[in-house]
């Protein structure tokens, strides 16, 4: 399998009052063609920033890439020209955002918004683009797509809007789809519909997808591989089943236990103590050590390297081999 996307030592942050504050503190990962990668983490961990970095949209949020490379089919995206970027966005890589209500322009009809994307990348007439757009709407399961072309986003339900977002994203047949919390704003029954639709679209065409979410349940059900992020660092990366069966990193473990104890209706919910550090907060050693029940002296002194285990999992923890010995650390 060829590497479609490769992120090498990426650092992202913002500059305020001449001070650089890192948000992503150096991450590495790669994605193969046809692969489905989930990125999980709590708010502020940098998972959305990662997707924006790939898209080259950081500047619109006031952020900059300070270091590292993003390789797309071997080509470094960091120093590509604006023109190259424009032809890539929406065409080779497309993105689906969290809140379809705000991610769609309220002033333009659904049709206009899909057609403009098609016409930005394909030399087709307006008529052809419209026909293609209708086809896309049909593909994402929107009933009577012809009439829906002239409808404004606010006239649709949340689920329909997200389908429109998806139709728009796939309209130029991108190789990679980045879905940033695509169902967070949706109801449970609709969430299931949308996630099913997405995974079908991806598997059908052998596309790749990065699914960004805070919901472990979603990841467990829809991704082949999961990367866990915390405070701008990668904590762990594993195939899904292995991750949930035997998390290597204390943070992953804490998250999973937390969710499980809620699901299992236990009296006391397991929780990770403390709170997510703020961007700009300087933490010596491991970023998680202050909240880690397994922390040893080294954790607060030295940053753990990311290690690749024998079965191809990656983890960034000094003590990951000893975790199973301590039971009930999170309670």
């Amino acid at each position, binding site marked *: 399998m060829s590497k479609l996307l490769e992120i090498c030592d990426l650092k992202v942050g913002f500059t305020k009052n001449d001070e650089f504050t890192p948000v992503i503190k150096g991450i590495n990962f790669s994605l193969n063609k046809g692969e489905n990668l989930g990125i999980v983490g709590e708010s502020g961990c940098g998972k959305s920033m990662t997707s924006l970095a790939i898209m080259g949209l950081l500047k619109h949020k006031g952020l900059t890439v300070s270091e590292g490379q993003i390789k797309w089919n071997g080509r470094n995206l960091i120093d590509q020209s604006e023109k190259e970027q424009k032809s890539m966005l929406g065409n080779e890589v497309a993105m689906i955002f969290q809140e379809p209500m705000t991610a769609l322009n309220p002033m333009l009809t659904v049709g206009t918004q899909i057609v403009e994307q098609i016409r930005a990348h394909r030399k087709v007439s307006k008529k052809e683009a419209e026909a293609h757009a209708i086809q896309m709407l049909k593909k994402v399961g929107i009933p009577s797509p012809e009439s829906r072309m002239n409808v404004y986003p606010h006239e649709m339900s949340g*689920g*329909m809007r997200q389908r429109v977002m998806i139709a728009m994203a796939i309209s130029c047949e991108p190789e990679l789809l980045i879905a940033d919390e695509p169902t967070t704003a949706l*109801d449970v*029954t609709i969430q299931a519909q949308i996630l099913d639709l997405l995974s079908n679209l991806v598997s059908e065409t052998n596309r790749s997808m990065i699914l960004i979410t805070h919901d472990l*349940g979603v990841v*467990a059900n829809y991704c082949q591989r999961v990367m866990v992020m915390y405070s701008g660092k990668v904590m762990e990366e594993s195939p899904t089943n292995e991750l949930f069966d035997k998390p290597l990193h204390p943070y992953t473990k804490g998250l999973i236990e937390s969710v499980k104890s809620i*699901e299992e*209706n236990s009296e006391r919910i397991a929780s990770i103590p403390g*709170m997510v550090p703020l961007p700009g907060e300087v933490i010596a050693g491991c970023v998680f050590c202050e909240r880690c029940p397994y922390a040893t002296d080294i954790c607060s002194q030295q940053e753990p390297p990311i290690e690749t285990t024998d079965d191809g999992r990656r983890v960034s923890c000094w003590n990951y081999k000893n975790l199973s010995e301590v039971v009930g650390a999170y309670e």
Partner: protein
Amino acid sequence: MNEAFNMKAIQEPLMEIKKLKKHFPIKKGFFDKLKDKTELSVKAVDNVTFTIYKGETLALVGESGCGKSTTGRSLLRLIEPTEGEVTFEGKNILSMKKQDMKDIRRELQIVFQDPYASLHPRMTVREIIMEPLIIHNVGSASERVKQVEELMEIVGLSSKMKNRYPHEFSGGQRQRIGIAKALALKPKIIVCDEAVSALDVSVQANILNLLKDLQDEFQLTYLFISHDLGVVKNISNRVGVMYLGKLVEIADTHTLFTNPRHPYTQALLSARPVIDKGLQTERIVLEGEIPTPINPPSGCRFHTRCPLKTERCMKESPEMVNLQGGHSVACFLAN
């Protein structure tokens, strides 16, 4: 846990909600009125009846627009219900005068969903938590300050932070402030309107634990409104499921999760992605969208999406029927 509740169930009801209705009229222009005389309205809550028992946590679940928040707010008269009766300790609060209502508000408090929007951005934490004390004229100035500090410690905030503004806190901390404020008047019941929905998993766990601790400590009753079935399963003793303004099923938590009888409840449970594959039930993916509450479907409101619908469902609206214990369902097929 559920067993424990069944013992409590014998206890007296704290709040009774009978045939609660809230219809929001849709304003029509002068000319529209000339053309069409019928009044349109959003039937947000339609004939909902249930009881909250002392010391329990009753959860209301449902998808957006099902009327769960409207119901919660109607109990506090933050929204004036169109019809129905809400009694608190035997007194109908909907017919109460202003002053009586103000007194009763000490007993009824609310914690909102959005920890960012629900706190006054220009008040310090101290002012925010003291606000209920001032409004209800509790204690002297120095007593109030002391009380604020106590409350902050109770919800796990350092009283050193009392002079900070809400935006200087994280989401979890804000929700703690909101809870401290709700606790200030020592209420009997707190309506938690999606109180943990906006929080991250690890923070969510902290807040849920806090709520549980507080319930034990202060003998609180919760009406817990949420769309998250996982959270509901964990915290509540009983669960009511709402769909499009109607209560479709109500039962104790264990019964509801193990033996849901309404097709909607079943679908809802199955749609929830869980990480423990053992808990995953067979997927029922519902077709279509939730209809608008302006013109809700005739008959059973769920019939447009129900995989099991019959002729009858389209014509008649099913009533709530008590199956056994506290388990009631509004579905023709459940009997």
